[in-house]
């Protein structure tokens, strides 16, 4: 039986090995494994890629969110509006800095619903954190209209959306700060934890660079308490290579989605939209259907890995009990959690793999009808 894996990091390594290993050796030979020229160069290249003035390399996407909010001006006790259908780090980065997450529901396309955001605003609201889930992008014009009206910051959770764009501007330029992950499972991925933030403000970037390094202004002076959240130079060297290849990765993933759209067009499945002025990078390719669990099991029996991201909305998590939400409060998120299924979409899938997945899904629906 054919096996179609959800992700294939070994294939990525084989493809890049010849270029990758010398870079790793170079970093080690330099003896500079924290900070240094690889970090500086990566930051410059990331800023240029996103089209933003500053990028700051950090240890993870979660840290990018926490530090991003801090340098944007979110303080303990402030409310931050965010969707309940993200990876938990969106919410836990808010609680971690002592701020209060306030959930707003999403639209059928899994992205933050501006109307729900507006309805959640209170006098304590300080920021909106749209999550560009799956590599899609939120309705930024509508969110900015609300933000301006209520004098709010926008913290882009772009952890899954490096390279995505909205009306010609890339993520990372669409908010007050942009927060990215380069976790191994992302399109733009390091070989371990890594992340970064982007900002147009020099002051914010400088503060983030201090905060990531214990608050040190120079070797001997701490101006405010910080944390340790430095991207390893080794990961920066890997990411610099992968940044040059990123557009190719995205193009291959987009080509895969085009194949799926043809293969799946007439089936009772909701497929991701891509409005004409948005550029989706397909970190995940998430379909929706009424019989999700049965479809997932049928695919697993055919050797196809398909996952649910995420089966349990954040407001249903045991950890969220203290936030005081109850079942039924976010009906779209709750309904989607029973309908969503992420199909393999990675750049190493062959045409045969895609057709195998396509026919597996078709067979499932044929056999049921």
């Amino acid at each position, binding site marked *: 039986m054919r096996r179609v894996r959800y992700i294939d*990091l070994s294939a990525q390594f084989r493809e890049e090995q010849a270029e990758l290993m010398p870079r790793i050796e170079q970093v080690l030979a330099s003896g500079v*494994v924290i900070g240094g020229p690889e970090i500086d160069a990566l930051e410059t290249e990331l800023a240029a890629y996103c089209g933003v003035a500053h990028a700051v390399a950090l240890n993870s*996407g979660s840290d990018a969110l926490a530090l991003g909010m801090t340098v944007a001006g979110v303080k303990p006790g402030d409310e931050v509006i965010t969707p309940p259908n993200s990876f938990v780090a969106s*919410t836990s980065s808010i609680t971690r800095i002592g701020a209060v997450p306030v959930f707003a529901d999403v639209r059928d396309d899994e992205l933050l619903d501006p109307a729900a955001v507006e309805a959640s605003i209170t006098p304590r609201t300080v920021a909106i954190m749209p999550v560009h889930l799956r590599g899609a992008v939120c309705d930024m014009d509508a969110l900015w209209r609300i933000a301006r009206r209520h004098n709010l910051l926008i913290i882009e959770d772009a952890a899954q959306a490096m390279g995505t764009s909205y009306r010609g501007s890339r993520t990372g330029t669409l908010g007050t700060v942009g927060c990215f992950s380069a976790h191994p499972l992302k399109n733009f991925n390091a070989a371990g934890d890594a992340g970064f933030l982007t900002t147009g403000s020099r002051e914010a970037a400088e503060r983030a660079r201090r905060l990531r390094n214990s608050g040190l202004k120079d070797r001997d002076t701490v101006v*405010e308490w910080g*944390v*340790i959240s430095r991207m390893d130079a*080794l990961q920066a060297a890997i990411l610099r290579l992968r940044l040059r290849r990123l557009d190719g990765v995205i193009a291959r993933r987009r080509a895969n989605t085009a194949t799926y759209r043809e293969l799946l067009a007439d089936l009772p499945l909701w497929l991701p939209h891509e409005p004409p002025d948005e550029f989706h990078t397909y970190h995940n390719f998430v379909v929706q259907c009424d019989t999700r669990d049965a479809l997932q099991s049928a695919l697993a029996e055919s050797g196809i890995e398909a996952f649910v991201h995420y089966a349990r909305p954040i407001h249903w*998590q045991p950890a969220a009990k203290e936030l005081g939400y109850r079942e039924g409060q976010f009906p779209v998120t709750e309904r989607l959690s029973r309908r969503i299924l992420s199909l393999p979409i990675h750049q190493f899938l062959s045409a045969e793999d895609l057709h195998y997945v396509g026919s597996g899904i078709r067979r499932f629906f044929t056999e049921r009808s």
Partner: protein
Amino acid sequence: MKVPYAYLAHQFADSERIFQRVRELTETGDYTLGRPVQEFESMLAVRLGIVHAIGVGSGTDGLKLALKAAGVGPGDEVVTAANTFIATIGAINDLGARPVLVDCDDSFCLDPDKLEDVLTSRTKAIVPVHLTGNMADMPRIMAIAGAHGLPVIEDACQALMSSLDGRFAGCWGLAGVFSLHPLKFINIWGDGGVIVTNDGRIGSDLRLLRNHGLADRDTVVTLGYNSRLDSLQAVVAAHVFQTADEIVRQRNQNAKFYDTELSGLDGIRVPPRRSHVTHTFVTYQLFARDRQRLLEHCLANGVDCKVHYPVPVYLQPALRCLGYEAGRFPVADRHARTVITLPVHEYLTEEQLAYTVEVIRRFYAQGAHDASCPLH
């Protein structure tokens, strides 16, 4: 002659064996909390004789997570040493807790005689810092903590493999935290750390806290952090850790040489050495008369000395809010004025060690120093 402080390029110069392991890892794609992390964790736990080892993103994160697991939260007081590296204070502050400082003694560790004076009803934990690879007086600190019912979280970031009466640093308190930073004793290719504990509940809480509070793929039981030791770094750590005993032996030999050659020198004072402590000499410090000029003299002669740390942490601008005034911690102040760090790493040759001694001797023999600078 040059006597460099840094040795990373040297250390990984013959790196084919480790590259082979890195290649094996990259082929598996097991980058996050995978087998290499578990293997390093159990290797370390077995060596230290402790039940749980939990790999985290850095020593600083390790302290923060261990304190959080011990129940420290906003408004609580955490007692630690006035001469520590700033990250200890940063970790306490990051939890919204308040650092309360105690002066050190000439072991560079918290002075147990002064510990009881600062305990209040708000004290939630004690964080002794095993600075420089030396060890704090753990039997006394544990006794005081026990009498007050307080948990001890050891900041052993600089003291992996250090021991007192045969018991390793990090294995005395409720939890101990090590750093694997590139300048530490067991060093990796970036940031990383490990927390150790014998307490099962603390151990499982820490495994949750480091990984977003995820009990399984879909269940978040506590809102946590992302602070994991990278698999790749665990591969490096395990590789370096195999040579730990040899590093301890070599650094001690180098330190002994400096101690012997410099102890009689007018202008230099060697910190007291204690026979029941195995020091790992992550850094080798001496007290020096007219330190600043000696530092310049050493640097000018190719000996890459450092100062850890010229500004005591309690005088940092970021700590002003606590209201400690200059002079409050006289030993920490004296150290900041007189301490100098010599290169001591395991890649130094006998010639380099002898040259370092010679450079220092010459400085005092020339009378280039200000003899009125105090040493005590």
